[in-house]
């Protein structure tokens, strides 16, 4: 696989082109330390969104909501329509959902491009979509008032009807829609007082469930075009390798094969279906020029990273005077932490269908990043972005993999379509997907910390080593400052504990392993390191881990609410746990949301067994409480998969895990009981897709320490899967 991708010159050009294609409004994908309220910028300046871009009301009264975010399990096809329906006064039972095409009106209000990520869908749409709904309601009322010749102020809307109480007249939205669509947009659209919400805040069933339980939900892999060929690609076994020579004579003769082609990423086999393409690909004989990537091996990289962690890096945070802090220390401790590369391993492997014509390109793929992918497809196809359309079916999981800053899977598919000249669907096998890179980076961390005589933390020096996920991508300019990638240090440079002397440093070594954001991004490793070390300091000070955290947090910290709630619900310090069980706690803020988790663990045959997780969440106002519960349950399973088993390792440049036999997400029998408690809040909503993931690994590690006295500082905890 050609991971270096573009040559320098064309890469620079692409970065420039995509910056243009994405428009000038790009503020930042991840906004460091972004609290929910930072999204107030969402509506500044307040553009008026035409309701017809988001709402279509049919004469039969059905309402189609066009959703501009990709549904990958996080529930946006329910939560976002709820925002519109609330203000529209729509009858919820009449709502249907449709995926938005690619168009500027569907751009993310903060990121300035069509993108689903950063746990930002609800927070960034909170003002926008409620205003869209309210605008629609006003227009429908206005249309009715005009028709009846009565003052608007005497009309009311509810349940997809406009009523005029005095005359007893009423009309359905379906009957009014056409007239309403012709009226000019109102300028001043007030929003409801949250106290008047009828839908927002109520547990609401997902609108996509009926399709997902009878097999009719369409995922990218289910797309079929007339005369379409299925394409499988043999990619380099080593990152950055290229084809030296190949013999496709056997593959070409294989039944069902329609062609074998050299493409930039390898050798493509086009056939009448997946099975002939796969079995023909097995017959290819390819000699690879493996390149320098062949030198990559996990043991060597680990040693290099740990060595680097002993040297000063780029400074991400300095408070007080770290040297003085250590001089005044009463007791100190130092520790090294390691976490491996991780694959997203979405259940639906990557796939892209492309119909490329001389003057247009139509793409069907489960993407989180339509605008970037369209810009890339246009560049490869030699078309203008507006000549490219992307249809977004359901995503069989995303977790960040489907928002690739290099548009890797879309780029490759358009390259293949150009070569083959027929409608195609590139399908990745599980092995292709797992070996294909764009992993959560491997990290090594070193912390030295000290406590004062009173036991409170006095000095904290944290050195982080790992690849930047934004280096050499269109996001570099936004997310890295003077070469310092904020996503590498988020959660470490931003923790709220009141420690007088803090220094956080970063090394961003480069290598050929492609890396990318992975559910919760930098927090997926920084929470583990910070929250296990804080726990360690609590024990060093001989204090209770919950009390110790509370004692060292600012009075206004939102960590307090979730810590107290999780501890209370778990009966922290009170509940008599079964023999051989222990509790551990961790708390972390990410994407504006604070989550505390208490994990109840035991050891079974020297393996960690997690029985129960009590989570407390402060994500501001909640749109769909059941959606929040789903996301936290899922985020815990995702984080536990990594904590217990997850590791992608390399030998001689080759990825050692190719399928679920060696890289195993949490199984049914390993799933703990999960309780999710929500802190009541009147703040605007913050993210919920990711924030449940970071605290679980440290909560479990802290519980294991409480039980065994052993500090787990390397993930995964299951030694057999570390390799």
């Amino acid at each position, binding site marked *: 696989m050609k991971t270096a991708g573009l040559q320098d010159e064309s890469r620079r050009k692409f970065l420039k082109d995509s910056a243009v294609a994405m428009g000038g409004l790009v503020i930042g994908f991840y906004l460091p330390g972004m609290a929910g309220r930072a999204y107030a910028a969402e509506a500044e300046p307040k553009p008026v969104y035409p309701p017809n871009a988001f709402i279509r009301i049919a004469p039969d009264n059905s309402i189609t909501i066009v959703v501009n975010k990709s*549904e*990958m*399990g*996080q*529930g946006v096809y329910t939560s976002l329509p709820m925002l519109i329906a609330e203000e529209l006064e729509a009858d919820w039972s009449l709502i249907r959902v449709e995926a938005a095409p690619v168009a500027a009106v569907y751009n993310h209000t903060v990121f300035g491009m069509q993108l689903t990520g950063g746990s930002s869908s609800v927070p960034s749409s909170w003002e926008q979509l409620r205003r869209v709904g309210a605008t629609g309601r006003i227009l429908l009322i206005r249309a009715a008032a005009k028709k009846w010749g009565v003052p608007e102020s005497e009309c009311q809307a509810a349940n997809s009807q406009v009523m005029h109480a005095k005359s007893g007249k009423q009309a359905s939205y379906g009957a009014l829609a056409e007239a309403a669509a012709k009226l000019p947009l109102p300028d001043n659209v007030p929003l409801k007082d949250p106290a008047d919400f009828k839908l927002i805040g109520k547990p609401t*069933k*997902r609108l*996509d*469930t*009926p*399709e*997902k*339980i*009878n*097999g*009719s*939900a*369409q*995922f990218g*892999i*289910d797309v*079929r075009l007339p005369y379409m060929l299925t394409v499988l690609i043999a990619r380099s076994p080593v990152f950055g390798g290229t084809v030296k020579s190949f013999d496709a004579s056997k593959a070409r003769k294989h*039944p069902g094969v329609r062609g074998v082609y050299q493409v930039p990423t390898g050798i493509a086999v086009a056939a*009448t*279906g*997946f*099975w*002939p393409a796969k079995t023909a690909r097995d017959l290819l004989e390819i000699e690879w020029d493996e390149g320098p990537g062949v030198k990559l091996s996990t043991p060597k990289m680990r040693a290099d990273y740990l060595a680097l962690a002993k040297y000063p890096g780029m400074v991400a945070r300095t408070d007080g005077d770290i040297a003085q802090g250590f001089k005044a220390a009463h007791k100190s401790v130092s520790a090294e932490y390691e976490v491996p590369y991780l694959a997203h*391993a*979405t*259940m*639906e*492997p990557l796939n892209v269908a492309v119909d490329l014509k001389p003057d247009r390109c139509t793409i069907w793929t489960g993407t989180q990043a339509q605008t970037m992918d369209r810009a890339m497809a246009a560049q490869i196809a030699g078309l203008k972005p507006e000549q490219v359309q992307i249809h977004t079916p*359901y*995503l*069989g*999981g*995303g*977790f960040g993999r489907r928002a690739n800053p290099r548009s890797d899977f879309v780029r490759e598919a358009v390259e293949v379509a150009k070569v083959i000249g027929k409608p195609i669907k590139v399908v990745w096998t*599980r092995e292709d997907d797992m070996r294909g890179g764009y992993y959560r980076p491997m990290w090594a961390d070193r912390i030295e910390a000290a406590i004062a005589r009173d036991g409170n933390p006095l000095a904290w020096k944290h050195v982080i080593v790992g690849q930047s996920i934004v280096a050499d991508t269109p996001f570099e300019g936004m997310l890295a400052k003077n070469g310092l990638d904020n996503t590498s240090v988020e959660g470490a440079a931003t923790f709220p504990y009141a420690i007088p002397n803090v220094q956080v440093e970063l090394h961003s070594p480069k290598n050929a392993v492609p890396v990318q954001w992975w559910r919760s991004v930098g927090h997926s490793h920084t929470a583990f390191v910070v929250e296990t070390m804080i726990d360690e300091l609590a024990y060093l000070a001989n204090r209770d881990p919950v009390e110790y955290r509370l004692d060292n947090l600012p009075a206004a910290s939102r960590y307090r609410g979730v810590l107290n709630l999780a501890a209370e619900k778990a009966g922290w310090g009170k509940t008599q746990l079964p023999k051989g069980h222990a509790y551990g706690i961790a708390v972390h803020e990410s994407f504006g949301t604070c989550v505390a988790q208490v994990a109840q663990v035991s050891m079974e045959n020297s393996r960690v067994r997690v029985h129960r997780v009590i989570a407390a969440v402060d994500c501001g106002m909640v749109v769909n409480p*059941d959606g929040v519960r*789903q996301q936290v*349950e*899922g*985020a*815990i*399973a*995702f984080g536990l998969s990594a904590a217990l088993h997850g590791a992608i390792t390399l030998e001689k440049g080759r990825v050692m895990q190719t*399928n*679920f*036999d060696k890289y*195993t*997400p*949490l*199984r*049914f*029998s390993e*799933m703990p*009981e*999960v309780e999710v408690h929500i802190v009541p809040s009147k703040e605007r909503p913050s993210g919920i897709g990711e924030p449940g993931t970071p605290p679980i690994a440290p909560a479990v590690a802290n519980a294991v320490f409480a039980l065994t006295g052993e500090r787990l500082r390397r993930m995964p905890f299951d030694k057999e899967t570390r390799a």
Partner: protein
Amino acid sequence: MISFNLNGKTTRVEVDPTTPLLWVLRDHLHLTGTKYGCGMSQCGNCTVHLDGKAIRSCVTPVSAVSGKQITTIEGLAATVLGKTVQSAWQEVDVPQCGYCQSGQIMAATALLTEHPDPTEAQIIAAMDGNLCRCGTYNRIRAAIRMASEQLGEAK
């Protein structure tokens, strides 16, 4: 030519007999509710019923189902049991991304066919081979229990 009963209808396919049933369903018969996840019986996304029992269609050559009865997610609602399981899934709101759910539902239905009132151990034995990356396992268990209760009440 291989012939089998698919969702109650006799179906004939002209295909290499070593082709896994999964790809016959998806690419030849265009029944895409059955999903590809791993191709090696590790994830259960491709679970269908062969004469009422759960099998992994990704490792079952189509020749092995000749003359047999195959039920996929698309045909599940034809039975009271299938409908009951689907409605429990709806009631509990199990799916997130939804990709694995056809396989989960097929595995759960086969379990309840054999054990209408399953023990926890029987649930684990039936469901542990079905991966869900979204972590819907607790809801899957709740839906199985709910369906089991409803089936018991109906008796």
